[in-house]
C-alpha cells in the first residue's frame, strides 16, 4: 500500500511550493554536513521499497534534497529528522517540488523554529503540550507526573519529524494534509489525540512501560486504518485556541526566567563561563582557520601578481619589438612607393616616346600613301591624255588620204608603223621619262615600305619594353604591398595578444 505515488495529493501539496529556481545551483555547492547526510539516508525508511536500495532513485533524491536544504538554510543546516519529512514529500512529487515544499514547511510553517537556539522552541512546545494535557486529559497528566514521564521523552520525535518517523504512512499523509491546511499547531491536536486514544493503556503503565508503549504498541495500533481514522477525527475535533497556546508560551518563558534567577549564581556563572569558554575556543579555532586561509590566499595572490607582472613584461617587450617592426615596415613601404613612382614616371616617358614615334611613322605612311595616290592619278591622267591624243591622231590619219592606208582594217599596225615612227619619237621620250619616274617611285615605295617595317619592329620592341616595365612595376608593387600587409598583420596580432 505504500508503493504507489500519491498523485492526487501531490497536486494539493505542491500548491504550496515556493519558487526556488536556484536550487539546482545550490545543489552543486559543498555541504559541510555531507557525511552526516549520507549516513542518515540509508537509515530513513530503510524498509520502504522506494528508499531501501543504496544508490537507488529514492535515496538519491532524498540525499539531494537534504543536501540542498543544508546549503540553503545555513543556520539550521541538516538536522536528523528532516530526512523523514523529505522522504514523505518525495513519495508524492518530484525532487524539486518536494524541496520547495520542505522549505515552505520549514520557513513559512515555522518548523525550523524548533531547531533553533538549542531547541528552545521545542522545549516550549513540550511545556505547551503538558499544559494542554493538564487541561484536556488531567488524569493522564497526573499519572505521567507520578511516574516522572516528561513530554520530551516521547514527543521529541513526534515534533521534530512531524510524526513521520514511526507511524504508518497513510496516517502520516493525513497528518501532513492537516498540517498544510491548518498550520504547525496541529501537532498539538495530533499529540493530544494520540495520548487521548491511548489513555486507558497508558494509565496502567509505569515509567518503562509507558516508554515501551510509545515505542512499540502506539505505532502498531495505527496499522489499522480504522484506528488511524478515528485518531484523525479526534484530532480534528479538538479545538485548541491560539490564545491559549500564546498564554502557555508566555508562562513557559516566565518560568524559564524564574528558573534562571533561582539558580545558584555561582553555578549559573560557571555554566555561563563554560559556555563562553566553549564559544571562545570555537571562535579561536575559527580565527585560526581564517588566519590560515588569509595567509594562503595572500600567498596565492602574490604568486598570481608575480605571474601577471612577468607576463606584462614579456608583453611589453613584444610590443616594443612589434613597434620597431612596424617602423621598419613603414620605411620599406615608403622606399617602395618612391621606387614605384620612379618606375611609373619612366614608363610614362617610354610610353610617350613610343607614342610620338608611332605618330611620326603613321604620318610618314600617310604622306607616302598620298604620294602614291597622286602618282597613280597623274599616271591615269597621262594615260587618258595619251588616249585622247591617239584618238586625235587616228582621226587625223583617217582624215588624211595618204595615211589612211596605214590604218586599214586588215593591217592596223602596218600602217601605223610609219605614224608610229613619228609618234614613237615623242612617246619614247615620254615613256622613258615615265618609266624613269615609275622606277624612281617604285624605289621610293620600297624604301618607304622598308621604313614602315623598321618602324613596326621598333614599335614591337618598345611594346615589349613597356610590358617588361609594367611587370616590374606590378611586381614591385606586389612585394611591397605583401610585406607591408604581413608586417601590419603581425603587428596587430601581437597587439591583440597584448590586450588579452
Amino acid at each position: 500500500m505504500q508503493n504507489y505515488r500519491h498523485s492526487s495529493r501531490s497536486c494539493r501539496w505542491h500548491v504550496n511550493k515556493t519558487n526556488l529556481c536556484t536550487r539546482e545551483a545550490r545543489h552543486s555547492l559543498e555541504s559541510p554536513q555531507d557525511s552526516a547526510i549520507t549516513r542518515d539516508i540509508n537509515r530513513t525508511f530503510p524498509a520502504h521499497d522506494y528508499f531501501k536500495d543504496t544508490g537507488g532513485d529514492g535515496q538519491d533524491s532524498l540525499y539531494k534534497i537534504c543536501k540542498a536544504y543544508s546549503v540553503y538554510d545555513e543556520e539550521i543546516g541538516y538536522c536528523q529528522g528532516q530526512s523523514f519529512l523529505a522522504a514523505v514529500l518525495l513519495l508524492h512529487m518530484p525532487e524539486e517540488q518536494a524541496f520547495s515544499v520542505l522549505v515552505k514547511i520549514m520557513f513559512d510553517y515555522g518548523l525550523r523554529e524548533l531547531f533553533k537556539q538549542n531547541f528552545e522552541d521545542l522545549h516550549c512546545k513540550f511545556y505547551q503540550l503538558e499544559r494542554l494535557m493538564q487541561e484536556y486529559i488531567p488524569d493522564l497528566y497526573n499519572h505521567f507526573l507520578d511516574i516522572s514521564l516528561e513530554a520530551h521523552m516521547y514527543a521529541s520525535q513526534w515534533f521534530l519529524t512531524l510524526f513521520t518517523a514511526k507511524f504508518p504512512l497513510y496516517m502520516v499523509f493525513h497528518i501532513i494534509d492537516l498540517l498544510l491546511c491548518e498550520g504547525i499547531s496541529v501537532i498539538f491536536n495530533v499529540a493530544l489525540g494520540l495520548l487521548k486514544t491511548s489513555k486507558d493503556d497508558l494509565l496502567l503503565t509505569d515509567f518503562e512501560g509507558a516508554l515501551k508503549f510509545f515505542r512499540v504498541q502506539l505505532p502498531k495500533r495505527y496499522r489499522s486504518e480504522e484506528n488511524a481514522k478515528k485518531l484523525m477525527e479526534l484530532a480534528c475535533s479538538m479545538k485548541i485556541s491560539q490564545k491559549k497556546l500564546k498564554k502557555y508560551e508566555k508562562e513557559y518563558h516566565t518560568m524559564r526566567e524564574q528558573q534562571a534567577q533561582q539558580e545558584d549564581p555561582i553555578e549559573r556563572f560557571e555554566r555561563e563561563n563554560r559556555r563562553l569558554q566553549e564559544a571562545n575556543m570555537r571562535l579561536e579555532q575559527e580565527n585560526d582557520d581564517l588566519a590560515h586561509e588569509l595567509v594562503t590566499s595572500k600567498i596565492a595572490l602574490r604568486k598570481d601578481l608575480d605571474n601577471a607582472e612577468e607576463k606584462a613584461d614579456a608583453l611589453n617587450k613584444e610590443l616594443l619589438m612589434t613597434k620597431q617592426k612596424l617602423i621598419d615596415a613603414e620605411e620599406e613601404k615608403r622606399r617602395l612607393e618612391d621606387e614605384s613612382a620612379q618606375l611609373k614616371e619612366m614608363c610614362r616617358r617610354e610610353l610617350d616616346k613610343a607614342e610620338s614615334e608611332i605618330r611620326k611613322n603613321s604620318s610618314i605612311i600617310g604622306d607616302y600613301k598620298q604620294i602614291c595616290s597622286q602618282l597613280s592619278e597623274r599616271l591615269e591622267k597621262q594615260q587618258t591624255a595619251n588616249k585622247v591624243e591617239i584618238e586625235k591622231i587616228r582621226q587625223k590619219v583617217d582624215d588624211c588620204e595618204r595615211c589612211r592606208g596605214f590604218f586599214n582594217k586588215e593591217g592596223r599596225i602596218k600602217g601605223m608603223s610609219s605614224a608610229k615612227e613619228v609618234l614613237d619619237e615623242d612617246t619614247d621620250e615620254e615613256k622613258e621619262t615615265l618609266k624613269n619616274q615609275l622606277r624612281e617611285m617604285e624605289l621610293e615605295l620600297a624604301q618607304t615600305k622598308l621604313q614602315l617595317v623598321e618602324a613596326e619592329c621598333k614599335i614591337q620592341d618598345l611594346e615589349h619594353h613597356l610590358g617588361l616595365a609594367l611587370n616590374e612595376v606590378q611586381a614591385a608593387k606586389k612585394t611591397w604591398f605583401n610585406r607591408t600587409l604581413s608586417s601590419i598583420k603581425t603587428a596587430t596580432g601581437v597587439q591583440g595578444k597584448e590586450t588579452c
Partner: protein
Amino acid sequence: MAETYDFLFKFLVIGSAGTGKSCLLHQFIENKFKQDSNHTIGVEFGSRVVNVGGKTVKLQIWDTAGQERFRSVTRSYYRGAAGALLVYDITSRETYNSLAAWLTDARTLASPNIVVILCGNKKDLDPEREVTFLEASRFAQENELMFLETSALTGENVEEAFLKCARTILNKIDSGELDPERMGSGIQYGDASLRQLRQPRSAQAVAPQPCGC
C-alpha cells in the same frame, strides 16, 4: 511490570552518529540485530533486568541521538547517569576522533564518577577497520575507561559491555566509592533492599520508582 531488583542503574549510550548505538541497545534488550533501523531522533529508551554477582540490577538505558546538535536535547538525560557506553565505529576514524569530546560531555554533564566503557562497535567489519585495537585500548587506559570491541550484528561482547559496566558500579558501591544515596548518582535501591532509604526525587533526570504492585 512487577519485577523486583536490588538496584536500578541509569545508563547512557553515547557516541557519534551512525556508530550503532541503537543497534547495540536493541541487541542487548531483544537479543537480535535490528534490521532496517531508522536513525534516532532525540532519545530512545530501553530497560532490562540483569543478574550481576548475585544481585539483580535493572538497567534503564537512554539511547541518544548522535548528531552533535542534539546534545542540548540529550544533555538533560546525562544528569544522574551511573554508567555509559561510549561507542565508536572501528571502520570510521572520524567517530574515534570525537571520543574525547563525548567523554568530556559525560564527565561534566553526568558525573565525574560516571563509569564509562568504551565500545569499538562493528567488530564484524574487520576488513574495513580504520582504528586498531591497540590504539583504542591505549586511549581507554589513558582515560581510565574499560574497553571492549563489540558487534551489534553478531551480538559479540554486547551483553558483556553492559554487564561489565554494571559490575564495576556494584564494586564501587561495595567499596564505598559510590554512594547510592547521593543525589544524582544514577543509582537507586530496588524494592528488594533498603526500601526505606529511597527518597522520592523530583528531579526529572532521576529514574522513577519501580512499581511495587
